[in-house]
């Protein structure tokens, strides 16, 4: 009796389950982050302005737009609708956010990230960086999985 295909199938199912958990966690984080900022767009506009990169009117516009984009992309990950688009947008957003945060630090700006609204206002730079890197890592792992067309589970 050859049990290899059964084991392979079970491993594949388990890996799929794990990746779905990652989808839900990452998607949930962005939905939460977006929802917090939707309720206080003025504070988010101030947080964007503190980076001293964009003019105030553009920062205000982004403060109204970005939280909804985060929520929709988070839903895309969880519901697996427009998944690729959501994944790529979130990866881009986090990458830009990371660069802006590091640039602000290098320029000596003492700012709050604004990632999670007032919930994250007391976090220090290291905590922000660690969370952003972890989220970016998860997004890149999900992207790699999609791009490789599940070759990883086929190799098990």
């Amino acid at each position, binding site marked *: 009796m050859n049990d290899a295909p059964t084991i392979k199938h079970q491993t594949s199912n388990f890996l799929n389950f794990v990746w779905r958990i990652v989808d839900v966690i990452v998607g949930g984080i962005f939905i939460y982050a977006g929802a917090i900022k939707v309720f206080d767009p003025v504070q988010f506009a101030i947080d964007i302005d503190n980076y001293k990169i964009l003019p105030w*009117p553009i920062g205000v516009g982004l403060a*109204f737009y970005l939280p909804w984009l985060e929520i*929709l992309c988070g839903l895309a990950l969880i519901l697996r609708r427009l998944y690729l*688009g959501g994944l790529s*947008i979130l990866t881009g957003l986090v990458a830009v956010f990371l660069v802006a945060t590091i640039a602000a630090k290098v320029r000596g700006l003492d700012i709050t990230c604004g990632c999670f609204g007032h919930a994250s206002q007391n976090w220090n730079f290291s905590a922000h960086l660690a969370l952003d890197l972890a989220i970016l890592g998860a997004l890149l792992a999900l992207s790699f999985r999609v*791009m490789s067309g599940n070759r990883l589970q086929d190799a098990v």
Partner: protein
Amino acid sequence: MVKSSLVRQALILVALAFVPGFVQAIFFWDKVSWRSPVPASEMVTVTQARAWGENTIWVDARPDNEFARDHVPGALPLNEDRWSELLPQFLAAWSPEKKVVVYCSSEGCNASREVAHRLHKEAQLANVFVLEGGWEEWLKEKR
């Protein structure tokens, strides 16, 4: 195939997000200051500030050399470079019934907003305002 699907999906999400964002911006239209980070209630024109007369303390948030060149008559210098040094002089002149008007060089400069914010937060002062248009506007009104 994957690439075109990715771009298409991303564009759909980008476009969809505009709808609730736009609706929310309309709802908040009067509640947010679109031109400047200082709320409208904390901005004051030259005419308004002048009308307060003796009850006004003018604060010049520009660098020392610009203050030395010219400033609003009776203004006190208070900039971020020499904050701890200049703050005592300002506090000595301040009293609760007075209105503080902070200005810097123009509409686009941030210094007056930063100084006003610090006076609110660190010195716990109320009645602190930012001069709309700054020193440039004062000069225009003077002519």
